[in-house]
């Protein structure tokens, strides 16, 4: 299958991308790695009139040590996250989770910015940046603004980004030595998580347990109140709205969340 016709525009810089999407408004879609957008376009589930390719905007591909935080450019690919020595040292949860996304071919193309901006609750990295309490940096016609990861996800495939805004960077505070774990339950190797859990210290976030990625707040509160891992994990499904699909219904997902949160907490504390 091939996408419906569209006009291809290539952005030469981040500012140029903002200008190009500004010119075309709702009709335009940014294209980063294309590994969420192009499959949707091939199935004609997305039919943009204009595609603005930001894939060559080199200035947005970086991983930088800023002292107490790490800055990651939106165009940094999963493959680069997975193989970064800086991330392996400072943010092993992010490096490891990036290595669990799709397959090697997907990771050679897909980017962190595309993963976060797409807003798919089944994606891995949104839950990871929630657990890491990252800040997202967006650029639009009126300049730059920062959005806390906790405020970024608004609904199914819906984020705080305006249509003419570009995600440029993710800033992640370095966790103070706390253990971490990433649990991803799939039926087949390359599938998205049926349920996933990202844990950094006592911060726990869930993949595919509602219309957005979300923090397991009941678990976090129980841990703060001194509950055992076993007891805290029992509360993993509280406040979630797990979807039903071919792979699992809500009850099975709730069960998975409890089991995977327990495993994640056991691993991160080991």
């Amino acid at each position, binding site marked *: *299958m091939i996408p419906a016709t569209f006009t*291809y525009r290539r952005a030469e810089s981040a500012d140029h991308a903002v200008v190009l999407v500004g010119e075309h408004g709702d009709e335009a879609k940014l294209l980063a790695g294309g590994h969420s957008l192009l499959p949707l376009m091939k199935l004609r589930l997305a039919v943009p009139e204009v595609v603005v390719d930001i894939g060559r905007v080199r200035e947005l591909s970086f991983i930088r040590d800023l002292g107490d935080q790490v800055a990651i450019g939106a165009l940094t690919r999963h493959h680069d996250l997975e193989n970064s020595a800086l991330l392996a040292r400072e943010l092993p949860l992010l490096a490891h989770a990036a290595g669990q996304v799709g397959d090697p071919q997907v990771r050679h193309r897909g980017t962190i910015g595309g993963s976060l901006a797409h807003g798919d609750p089944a994606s891995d990295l949104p839950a990871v940046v929630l657990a890491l309490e990252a800040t997202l940096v967006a650029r639009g016609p009126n300049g730059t603004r920062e959005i806390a990861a906790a405020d970024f996800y608004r609904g199914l495939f819906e984020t705080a980004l305006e249509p003419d805004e570009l995600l440029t960077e993710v800033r992640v505070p370095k966790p103070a030595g706390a253990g971490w774990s990433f649990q991803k339950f799939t039926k087949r190797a*390359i599938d998205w998580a049926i349920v996933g859990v990202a844990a950094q210290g006592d911060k726990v976030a869930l993949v595919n347990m509602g219309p957005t990625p979300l923090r397991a707040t009941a678990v976090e509160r129980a841990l703060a109140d001194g509950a055992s891992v076993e007891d805290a994990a029992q509360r993993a499904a509280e406040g979630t709205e797990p979807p039903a699909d071919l792979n699992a219904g809500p009850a099975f997902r709730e069960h998975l969340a409890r089991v995977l949160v327990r495993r994640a907490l056991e691993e991160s504390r080991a």
Partner: protein
Amino acid sequence: MKVTITVNGEQIQDDVEDRTLLVHFLRDGANLTATNIGCDTTSCGACTVLLDGESVKSCTVLAAQADGAEVTTVEGLAGPDGELHPMQRAFQAEHGLQCGFCTPGMVMAAVSLLKENPHPTEQQVRVGLEGNLCRCTGYHNIVRAVLAAAAEEEGA
């Protein structure tokens, strides 16, 4: 739009629709039909080629995104004298194929895998080829072929 891609060492220019996928540029534009299309969902890996040396699914890359880049397809692996690439020889020797539909993509994914990890364990080969589906072999001989190619390249 005009797109120029160096395919297997040869510069190919074509005037294509903006929506043209790299796999169609290769098959219809460059007449290199070894690269197969096996699905509509970026799942099967039959279309895998190297883009600037790394494996990608060419059904999910626009030709425009590859403009100016270098692409290697399975047709570009053999030497100028027709001598097979070690990976191709290993697939032949270890019976790493039956119908052959997945093979061009499987071989390119395997070449990319060994580039990044020249001495993989069996488990690393299995995980490294998770983006490529084979409906015939049950994978065992494919894994054996990749390990044999790794051993041969080490010996060479």
